[in-house]
């Protein structure tokens, strides 16, 4: 990535069980990083094991894994909700773990926002009060907090429902409140912990579009947790796949489909709509000549398939600067579409 890392972690561990002495031992120099047998030998269970991540400014970084893979623990470590057993976490180059309680509170008040799976709305407050809550906690004046709250409520399309109570809203609307609330403080880092998992599929789709629309406007640095691979593919700039506490692969959706790190990852990619993931650049014949006004190398196959097939001849592919880099023909597009069916 060209952008500097906004949030990163190095050799991050969270283990449960085992004595403090044992922890000191296994995170000591000789046997680090410990393997499964070592952990088991000390009666420990690793929720997050040896995680390295660099999340760039303005990127949507999705952490994907099935239940029990440690993704929720990882995001809670990154957000500072729980303390790691070992490792380092940096936000804007500053070590999160060396900060005082006071500094952490300040950080959370101004730089972080989080959306929760089950919304975590306060049941005794109205929509407006819920959204204004993080601002009032900071001691902002009531009027200013309300003005800002109304702004974000409008942003998520809930204008007119300010005085409703959470339990009077549908699941999708409740999560909109959750999103508005997390955005009220204008966070730089936005954590979303399975935000759409509790919603039914149609609403989920709608909320994903809404999320992309918001991100298009706001350009936050996002850490998004999901167990749904399709959701990850749809939203992510990059995806980290987790299994049994370990990060197996970090890659763009396209790289995952083209070069899965192992069978486990491949199993997920099997049913992915490849035309929507693969870009022209991954399929074209490099260096070959083609006709036409030029297809952008980063365009997805699905976007250009109809044109390429209709053209009946190889079309020119160009990069960001307009230079031709290769050509794509109907056969290559059809291959992608057909494998899609399988």
């Amino acid at each position, binding site marked *: 990535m060209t952008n500097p890392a906004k949030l990163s972690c190095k050799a991050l561990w969270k283990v449960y069980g085992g004595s403090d002495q044992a922890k000191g031992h296994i995170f000591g120099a000789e046997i680090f990083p410990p393997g499964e047998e070592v952990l088991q030998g000390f009666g420990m269970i690793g929720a997050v094991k040896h995680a390295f991540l660099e999340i760039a400014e303005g990127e949507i970084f999705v952490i994907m894994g099935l239940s029990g893979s440690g993704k929720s623990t990882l995001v809670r470590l990154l957000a500072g909700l729980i303390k790691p057993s070992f490792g380092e976490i940096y936000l804007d180059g500053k070590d999160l773990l060396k900060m005082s309680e006071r500094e952490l509170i300040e950080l959370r008040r101004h730089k972080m926002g989080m959306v929760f799976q089950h919304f*975590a709305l306060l*049941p005794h407050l109205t929509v407006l009060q819920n959204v204004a809550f993080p601002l009032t906690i900071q001691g902002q004046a009531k009027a200013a907090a309300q003005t800002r709250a109304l702004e974000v409520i409008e942003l998520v399309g809930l204008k007119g429902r300010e005085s409703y109570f959470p339990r009077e809203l549908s699941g999708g609307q409740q999560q909109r409140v959750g999103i508005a609330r997390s955005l009220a403080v204008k966070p730089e880092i936005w954590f979303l912990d399975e935000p759409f998992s509790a919603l039914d599929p149609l609403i989920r789709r709608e909320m994903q579009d809404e999320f992309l629309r918001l991100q298009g406007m706001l350009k936050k640095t996002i850490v998004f947790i999901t167990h749904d691979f399709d959701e990850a593919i749809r939203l992510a700039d990059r995806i980290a796949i987790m299994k049994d506490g370990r990060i197996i692969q970090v890659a763009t959706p396209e790289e995952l489909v083209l070069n899965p790190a192992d069978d486990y990852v491949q199993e997920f990619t099997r049913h992915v709509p490849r035309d929507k993931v693969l870009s022209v650049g991954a399929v074209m014949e490099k260096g070959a000549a083609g006709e036409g006004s030029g297809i952008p190398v980063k365009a997805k196959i699905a976007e250009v398939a109809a044109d390429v097939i209709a053209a009946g001849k190889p079309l020119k592919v160009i990069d960001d600067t307009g230079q031709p880099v290769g050509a794509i023909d109907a056969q290559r597009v059809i291959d992608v579409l057909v494998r899609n069916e399988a």
Partner: protein
Amino acid sequence: MAWASPRTVVWPGLFVLTWLLATFGRGWLEAAGLGWAMQYPDAWVIPLKDSISAAMKWLVEEASFGLFTFTEFTRGISWLIEQPYNLARALLAEGFVQGHGRRAVQIVPPVSWIAVTAGVVALGHYARDWLLATIVGAAFLYLAVFGQWESAMVTLASVLIAVPIGVAGGLLLGITAYRHRSFERLLKPVLDLMQTIPIFAYLVPILFMFGFGPVSALVATVIYAMPPMVRITTMALHAVDPEIRDFGVMSGCTRRQMTWRVLVPSARASLMVGVNQVIMLSLNMVIIASMIGAGGLGFDVLSALRRLNIGGGFEAGIAIVILAVAIDRLSQAFAARATTFTPPPKGDTWIKRHPRSVIVLAILLASYAVGLFLPAVQTYPDTATLTTGRFWDNGVKYLNINFYDQFEAVKLFFLQGFLLPVKRFFLGIPWPWAIAMVTAIGWTFGGWKLALMNLLMAGFIAATGMWEKAMITVYLCGTSVVIASIIGIPLGILAAVNERAGRIIGVLIDTLQTLPSFVYLIPVVMLFRIGDFTAMLAIVLYALVPAVRYAAHGVRSVSPELIEAGVISGCTRRQLLTRIRLPLALPEILLGLNQTIMLALSMLVITALVGTRDLGQEVYIALTKADTGRGLVAGFAIAFIAIIADRVITASARSARIRYGLESANG
């Protein structure tokens, strides 16, 4: 018992042996020169009560914290509690007076009965709807019309002071326990003990420290009503969705903001249940505390019972019931309201936004003004009060004249056929043997820890010279629990199986549960006079509720899949009940039994008023003599009986649950 196959021989054998010992043991032991095993020798009694009394005396007379003495400390607390109490009492019952005794002159009269009634009607409407407003309004009108107004207001004043103290104290302790694990561990056994020590037992030291009067009564009430609030607070805070807690952290809440702006409000619904409990327990205790000077309705009942004034007792008793029901419904409505959306009040002025408050305020001022010329508006006129006293008098007289033989026959039948043999049995067991048996039972169900605890607790009872009275307690409590279970468990099963019966029984149980324990004494004393049988009836009535409730819950919560499996296998309805529902509901029924025993023990002390000769009487005597040591030792003895019963039953319920795979053995 089916699950104890090797024990099927041992336990009946031991029981037969115990029975033989109880029946013939006295002769044998005396012949063998072991008479001390029947009657715990006086010389062996540890003079614990004297030590406690001496310590108390020292505390009150000499103890000092340096800057101030213990007595000054208690006086300070007294003063703090007295101020709001006097205010509430003056407002509701007595008015503001100047001077003392007969020279007292009323400066401002108390709030008129019309204004108080208007106030509760407004509260009812605010909390729910016109129906509730009508119910509570009617309840307060009843108090006025039937001449119970002043006593009821004195009781209400005590409740109004005790409840906020109990709620706030419980909330703070609960929050501290939630925050600090070590404090929770410290608090838990204290709470357990507080809930099992009979209320009378701590009336004695409180009386000693604060003297006879309303302050003692209030302190006792708060101590009695607070433990459930502490428990519910800790539980409710632990039950707050962890995501909400995470959200609080992520918003950058400080610890204080986290507690008061995130956790406590989120747990509001559960906390309101605790508030309701505090209210009901306070009411119950205020009635009992009339013995140490709380006055009010409880005092009326007590003095009526002492004078065998049937009508007066009934009237005051019904007034207690009505007050209890009104307060209960009102507080439950408030609890439900906390989670319901109400549209914001419209209007731009304070008057328009608070129509109810304005109307009540207007009625209050108007009734003051009119009351100066028309006393009936200020105080409900005595001449217009109705009395049902004569009706009850006549009714009871009629029953006693016409059905005396029948009542006596029932009483005799139970006494001779059931109560007395059981009493002889318990009193006949040599105490070393009984202690050995209790220890053995502990060992069977809960291993050596429980065995040791049982041994020590039973040993304490013997060593403090309480053995005989403890056995009477066990007998009276045991027979009552048996009868309460015989009536209650089938009712519970019926309620679970038959929906219509379930609804009727549900209403009945809810009502029984709102009644202060004192009230149960009135009808049984009227019909059966004093004695063991009367005490047993009162205990059965009071302790019935959990037997019904837990049985119903246990049978209802059997998984529907298992019922379907039974139906598919061709079970008849009876087989479904006996083969599937009952065995699976057993752990739940055992827990109900546990609660029944606890309630029975707490009621037992109150029945000391009707002349039983058990530990309850011991506490009661200590109360009248202000003998702290005696009262506390007897109180501990009762608590130990309760704890032994509780631990043994809990352990056996747990082993039953483990057998059914509802709980893991190491969980």
